[in-house]
């Protein structure tokens, strides 16, 4: 009978023969085209669906190009035993990747940094005081990583929370902008992110016109920063319309 060898042998992913990646991003001229043919200020088509996981209290699936994410929400349920009494609810977030999410096979482990970003982006939107002593768990799994992962996770998580009937002030929509040379490109894909000079990620509650989370890396002048923020805000409100219509569809489907 065939059996597996005792110890796992070391393996590698075969690389392409030529590294023939066109050097499109480096130059500062405005004429280059994005790899997927989008305009600089054009987002990928967004697809959302709620109720993706039956076992969860609420869940949502989001697909932006190759970025595919599932978020499940459990609870409000009993907090861990070690937790002390709290008169507001707790939010517990976890983001993990599948082993095949990235082009090179990964470990599929938890992503601590993203987990804490997700937590910060959502906590301002949730009415924690409506479920004292209990915990709401928000778990995200990135099925495939195609760039702008964390904003997609955040938008998807806020839909999942809405699906679970957790009380919120507003939906949270997230968008990121990459700075490549002198250009700003919105909703960057993995290829663009790997050679970006700077990145700005914003999540906001569009109806309340409030920013819940903002992270910036790279060097930005004030003017550029304002331009990028405005781009994000506009994109967020568009995204929120799509998210809202997804929720409406789901609600009308259950009523029928």
């Amino acid at each position, binding site marked *: 009978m065939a059996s597996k060898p005792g110890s796992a042998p070391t393996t590698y992913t075969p690389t392409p023969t030529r590294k023939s990646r066109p050097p499109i991003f480096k130059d500062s001229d405005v004429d280059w085209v994005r790899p997927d043919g989008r305009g600089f200020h054009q987002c990928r088509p967004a697809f959302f669906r709620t109720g993706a996981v039956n076992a969860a209290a609420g869940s949502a699936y989001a697909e932006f190009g190759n970025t595919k994410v599932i978020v499940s929400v459990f609870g409000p349920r009993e907090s861990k035993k070690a937790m002390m009494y709290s008169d507001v609810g707790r939010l517990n977030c976890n983001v993990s990747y599948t082993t095949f999410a990235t082009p090179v096979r990964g470990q599929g482990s938890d992503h*601590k*940094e993203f987990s*804490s970003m997700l937590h*910060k982006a959502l*906590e*301002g*939107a949730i009415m924690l005081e409506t479920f004292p002593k209990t915990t709401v768990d928000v778990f995200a799994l990135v099925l495939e990583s195609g760039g702008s992962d964390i904003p997609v996770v955040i938008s998807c998580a806020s839909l999942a929370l809405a699906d679970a009937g957790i009380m919120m002030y507003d939906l949270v929509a997230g968008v990121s902008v990459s*700075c490549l040379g002198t250009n700003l490109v919105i909703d960057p894909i993995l290829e663009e*992110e*790997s*050679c*970006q*000079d*700077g*990145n*700005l990620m914003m999540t*906001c*509650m569009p109806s*309340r*016109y*409030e*920013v*819940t*989370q*903002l*992270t*910036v*890396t*790279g*060097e*930005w*002048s*004030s003017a550029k*920063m*304002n331009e990028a*923020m405005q781009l994000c*805000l506009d994109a967020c409100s568009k995204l929120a319309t799509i998210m809202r219509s997804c929720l409406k569809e789901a609600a009308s489907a259950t009523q029928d």
Partner: protein
Amino acid sequence: MVGLSVGEKYFIQGGINQNLRSDGRKRDTYRPIFVETGVIPQANGSARVRIGTTEVIASVKAELGRPSALHPDKGKVAIFVDCSPVAEPTFEGRGGEDLSTELSVALQHCLLGGKSGAGAGIDPSSLVVAEGKVCWDLYIDGLIVSSDGNLLDALGAAIKAALSNTGIPRVHVTAAASGDEQPEVDISDEEFLQFDTSEVPVIVTLTKVGRHYIVDATSEEESQMSSAISFSINRKGHICGLTKRGGSGIDPSVISDMISVAQHISEQLITKLESEISAAEAGEDEL
């Protein structure tokens, strides 16, 4: 954690509203800053920074390593923050883990720039010894000794001071190696390279309490915050990194406002910090 009575909370908020904080400062004044360099002899560079009663130590250690396959022309910089239980009993065991991850990630965002390296305080290409083969790996460790608010600004200042205190030995590649082999290197005992730290940004955290925002909040004031934004700003007034803490949302126009205030404050802070650093360096040389 800070336990405050309703009256105390009201007092703090009221003070901030009237631009007179409980320790007598205005909304945009820092507490006095003290810098001491070379505090850890084993490290390549180190500094202790005190802002009021907040005290942190940063150390820089350089080790020869191999550049990653993706960026063969860059060295690697890692930042890690440790929350000592000396600063707060709740940090005991794994209690400080969340805070230390949060601070480490925030510092990485603020100081290491974008993916391509633009806006980084430390130019990673200056760390390369032989392209694709040998580079310096910088390990920057922060330690919180005493915590009374505004940890991120203090850590940012300490790292800037520690970097200017850092000397990295000059390395000569003695024999060029072919193919996959590692070249032989000779590490000099006498010649040291100094970093140009004038480009290292400072971190300014604006903490929003009520309708106003303050700089350099103490832990009592932080317990009253609705949210806080940390800006990392360099000499040119460009923003090199930004992270937001605290749950509640902020109006985008307020953020733009905060950016310009932070830029203004950073100018003063850079001047103040650099004079403190050079004084500390001079003091160390005398000894």
